[in-house]
């Protein structure tokens, strides 16, 4: 959490100092923090800019490597617990794999089908660990938990509560009323009916499918201390079905003649990934894109609340069940509570206040987020998925699939999601607030 706090504070100060000196609200860190860009014919297109070399992503990639490498080294106690000589090559390779995952995800065709970097980062790690084996010298840099929790706290800064009412009450009802109902129902179904042996796998799949895909799965997995294989499985299923729904749902809406506004809200609340929602929404026109993307944005904001709720439930109920039903005291609850959730919520509250209170709040928070924190957050998640892959054996994944229960859970949960979201979208956008939603 300290790493994330340092990044947020430095990024914020950088914007304020630059604004003070030049009057422009930009982040001076932007050129030093970048990921590879998209490309079509050659991966080099993603590293080199046609203009000034200083604008080339390669500068930012190297900058990100140095920033994350230095901060991680301090956090891991390099020099005391791990030698610099062992850490540098290990981190260099893990970062190179994360960058390669970005390159793979950045190919235009791959990108257009929402095949996100998480998939490729996981895949690269799995290929290494299940063929030649993860080399021992790489271990000093394999720290999934550190990378995930840092990324999650940085994500908190992007959850701006003032945007909750972007679509008014209809958006809130579709995104914030249906979602918890589906999450809880799917979890209960998984426990009572399917009797999934792993409660954490059940929770991660439920959150992934009902909230907003990969980012929700990461937050839920950290909140309920799920195993890495469980997170991998949930994300693999989610991304697979996302591509399918991105193509099928718009076709269904057009074929059935469903009102485009209701259809767009339906897609926004059900398709797991933000990018896929935008692609699907755009097939219904500009208004469809607007409604679908905004509903998904409102669902994105639910991540913090859901992670907090899951963490509270887990510590007070699930872990208590493992303690022979003894009541767990307040101090023990606090001790077990995943502290990154506090960091996430605090980052969200702080940035929401900055956004709402400052005269140029939206410009300032946008400069901070787009200038550095968003990119670093992405890199931390990418590093985490590479590490998960490097530590996972295929043999560990297979038991999770036993009986096909995770898949059945996902399918049943998503079916409920589709039905309830459509009903709510129809009620809100087709009946109660029918004439309201025009921009």
């Amino acid at each position: 959490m300290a790493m994330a706090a340092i990044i947020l504070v430095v990024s914020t100060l950088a914007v304020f100092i630059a604004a003070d000196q030049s009057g422009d609200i930009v982040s001076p860190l932007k050129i030093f923090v970048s990921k590879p860009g998209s490309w079509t014919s050659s991966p080099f297109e993603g590293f080199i800019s046609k203009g000034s070399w200083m604008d080339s992503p390669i500068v930012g990639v190297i900058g990100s490597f140095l920033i994350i490498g230095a901060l991680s080294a301090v956090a891991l106690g390099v020099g005391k617990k791990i030698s610099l000589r062992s850490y540098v090559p290990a981190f260099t390779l893990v970062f190179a794999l994360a960058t390669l995952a970005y390159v793979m995800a950045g190919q235009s065709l791959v990108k257009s089908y929402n095949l996100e970097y998480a998939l490729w980062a996981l895949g690269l790690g799995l290929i290494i660990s299940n063929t030649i084996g993860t080399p021992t010298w790489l271990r000093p840099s394999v720290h999934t938990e550190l990378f995930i929790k840092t990324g999650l706290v940085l994500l908190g800064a992007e959850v701006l509560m003032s945007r909750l009412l972007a679509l008014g009450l209809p958006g809130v009802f579709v995104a914030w009323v249906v979602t918890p109902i589906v999450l809880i129902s799917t979890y209960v179904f998984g426990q009572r009916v399917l009797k999934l042996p792993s409660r954490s796998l059940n929770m991660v799949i439920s959150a992934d499918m009902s909230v907003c895909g990969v980012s929700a799965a990461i937050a839920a997995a950290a909140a309920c201390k799920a195993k890495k294989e469980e997170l991998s499985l949930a994300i693999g299923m989610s991304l697979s079905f996302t591509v399918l729904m991105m193509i099928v749902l718009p076709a269904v809406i057009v074929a059935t003649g469903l009102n485009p506004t209701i259809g767009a809200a339906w897609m926004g609340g059900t398709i797991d990934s933000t990018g896929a929602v935008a692609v699907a929404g755009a097939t219904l026109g500009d208004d469809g894109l607007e409604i679908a993307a905004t509903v998904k944005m409102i669902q994105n904001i639910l991540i913090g609340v859901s992670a907090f709720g899951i963490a509270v439930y887990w510590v007070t109920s699930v872990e208590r069940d493992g303690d022979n039903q003894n009541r767990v005291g307040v101090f023990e609850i606090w001790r077990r509570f995943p502290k990154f959730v506090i960091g996430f919520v605090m980052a969200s509250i702080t940035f929401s206040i900055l956004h709402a209170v400052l005269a140029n709040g939206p410009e300032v928070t946008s400069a901070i987020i787009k200038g550095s924190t968003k990119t670093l957050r992405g890199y931390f998640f990418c590093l985490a998925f590479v590490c998960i892959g490097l530590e996972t054996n295929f043999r560990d994944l297979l038991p999770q699939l036993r009986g096909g229960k995770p898949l059945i859970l996902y399918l049943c949960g998503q079916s409920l999601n589709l039905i309830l979201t459509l009903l709510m979208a129809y009620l809100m956008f087709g009946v109660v607030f029918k004439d309201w939603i025009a921009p």
Partner: protein
Amino acid sequence: MRTNRQVAAFMIIGFAMIFIWLRVLPRISHQPRVMERLQRLDAKGIDASAMFYTELPCMDEILERRGVR
């Protein structure tokens, strides 16, 4: 101790990925219909791989149109 089989598997997968990403995908991407779709997504500011709304380029414009800060 790595076996030859493990090393061979790693190299085969590696070469397959290089071939697909450097040859197959660029070739498909340059098909007229595919190119048109990719350009359409770009023109609308849609990043299909966006994981969060802050990664969607068109979101700023959408929020501005809706009068949301």
